[in-house]
């Protein structure tokens, strides 16, 4: 039995450990069941849903980059109604904290989905995606203008009794300003970071690789950007941060915790190693033990104090 307490909590959501999986990389929670038991995870974040079903963008949707991956899936999802009917009854039974992720094209879209998803739905929290880079006006507008971000968070907050996590885009000049805005709007936590906008060109075809031209960059390549943003935001707001962006190993996860994240989330790392979340949980535990920490919560933001012994 471990001497380290791995449990953590995010404003009304209790997690058995601080390791989650990221929206868009973990389907609706069942796809990885054969590789990684969900009951071992702190929680999972479901594929983003929109009020209406969406087929998303054309293929190619993926382009590999050095230690990274560009994607332009374009929010393909079954829509709110089908989610409630066919997916929610299954995911609510999963023995882990299940976080739904919602995206919209207007304030009304977000409000409609928040209204439909309440605590009695069996979900642990609602992640509000105001940062999808792959859809025209796919929430990105809400994620790059502080005033709009504050408004959309405030609007969903009054509609649901679930904790609200604002997922922020790194494609902004001032990430701190955005984080402060969603705090003012009433967010209970922030997820940092979504993907970085990028593109690649096929030099034989002399055309963009992705059918959608641009895509969101994820994977180890973006980790330093994400760690920096978590570091800055943790100094500026009081909300818990779910740190993500390129986490593939336990060492990566520990960096985020030290930078000020209360929990971490594994996304593209699952594609590389479907057991990465398990190895990360174990690695964090071993690290805490080695450093003489009784709880993983003691790690949060420790690098700011320069006190790691």
């Amino acid at each position: 039995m471990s001497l380290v307490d791995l449990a953590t909590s995010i404003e009304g959501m209790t997690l058995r450990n601080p390791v989650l999986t990221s929206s868009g990389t973990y389907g609706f929670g069942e796809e990885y069941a054969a590789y990684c038991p969900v009951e071992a995870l702190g929680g999972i974040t479901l594929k983003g849903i929109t009020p209406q079903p969406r087929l998303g963008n054309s293929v190619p949707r993926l382009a590999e980059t050095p230690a990274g991956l560009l994607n332009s899936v374009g929010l393909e999802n079954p829509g709110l109604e089908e989610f409630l009917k066919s997916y929610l009854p299954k995911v609510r039974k999963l023995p882990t904290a299940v976080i739904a992720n919602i995206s919209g094209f207007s304030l009304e879209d977000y409000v409609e989905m928040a209204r439909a998803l309440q605590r009695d739905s069996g979900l642990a929290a609602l992640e509000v995606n105001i940062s999808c880079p792959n859809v025209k006006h796919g929430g990105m507008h809400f994620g790059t203008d502080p005033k709009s971000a504050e408004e959309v968070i405030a609007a969903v907050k009054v509609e649901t009794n679930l904790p609200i996590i604002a997922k922020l885009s790194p494609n902004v000049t001032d990430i701190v300003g955005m984080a402060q805005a969603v705090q003012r709007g009433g967010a209970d936590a922030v997820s940092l970071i979504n993907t970085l906008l990028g593109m690649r060109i096929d030099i034989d075809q002399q055309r963009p690789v992705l059918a959608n031209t641009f895509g969101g960059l994820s994977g180890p390549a973006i980790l330093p950007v994400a760690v920096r943003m978590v570091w800055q935001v943790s100094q500026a707001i009081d909300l818990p941060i779910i740190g993500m962006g390129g986490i593939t190993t336990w060492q990566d996860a520990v960096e985020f915790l030290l930078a000020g994240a209360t929990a971490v989330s594994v996304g593209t790392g699952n594609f590389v190693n479907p057991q990465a979340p398990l190895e990360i949980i174990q690695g964090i535990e071993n690290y805490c033990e080695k450093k003489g920490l009784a709880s993983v919560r003691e790690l949060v933001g420790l690098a700011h104090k320069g006190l790691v012994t």
Partner: protein
Amino acid sequence: MLTEGQVVGHECFGDEAQRLRRLVLKGPIAKSAKPGQFVAIQVQDSRVSSFDPLLRRPISLAQISPDQDEITLLYRIQGRGTEILARVRYGESLSVMGPLGKGFSLPEVGELWLVAGGIGIFPLYALAKSALAQGLRVRLFWGGENQSFLESAGLSQWQALGVQMHLSTLDGSLGQKGLVTEELQARLSQLLEQTKQVGQSSTGQINVATCGPARMMQAVTKLCLEFKVPVEVSLEERMGCAVGACLGCICTLTDERGTLIHKKICQDGPVFRGEEVVWDVSC
């Protein structure tokens, strides 16, 4: 499942100029794998861990040997990932996810016609072995660039299977000069004539399975629909997770009502019924 596959064979397959490799991995995957399924291999030098390339490489199963606990993968070196994979040596191990996806369905009786374009031949070899073991008659239509390619990509192994073959090459150096679909069309027409002569209304118990370039499979599907022969196609697309979680490798199909839908090639496929596929979106 996620396993460590031990490399028990890794060598140049055919003429070096064709850049083909044969990789044999030992592990439990062979016991549960079916023809048409694939594995996702972590491509990295096992001695130095690296995230470049980041993603696993999906490779189809060319041979499944449950008795030896071995799977054989044939691939062509055509990018950074396969360049690195090609350096993996005997005795080393590779992280393997699989068997993944849904494979070809094997008809219970009759004839199975295989139509391959280029290295699309590789997964069809495992299928031919299973079909023959089940007592089906197998016929191969295979088109490639030239004689050197066909000989390098396993022609002698196919000859050893004793199946009837219709070869075609673009330059005419072996078999018929032209496209594999021309051979298929000729043979289907001939068969239809024969069945008409004996008073039957259809070409009987023939099933087609095809793998190759999308345009070729589209043409094969069109022919099969024309001749009312069931056809299965094996699709390909850049993959992310390989388990249906990321929606990177979707294809467009039509459902029973004619509505356009997306399916995941990695999880719902890679094998689909030809008539379901909306080719002009998928390729």
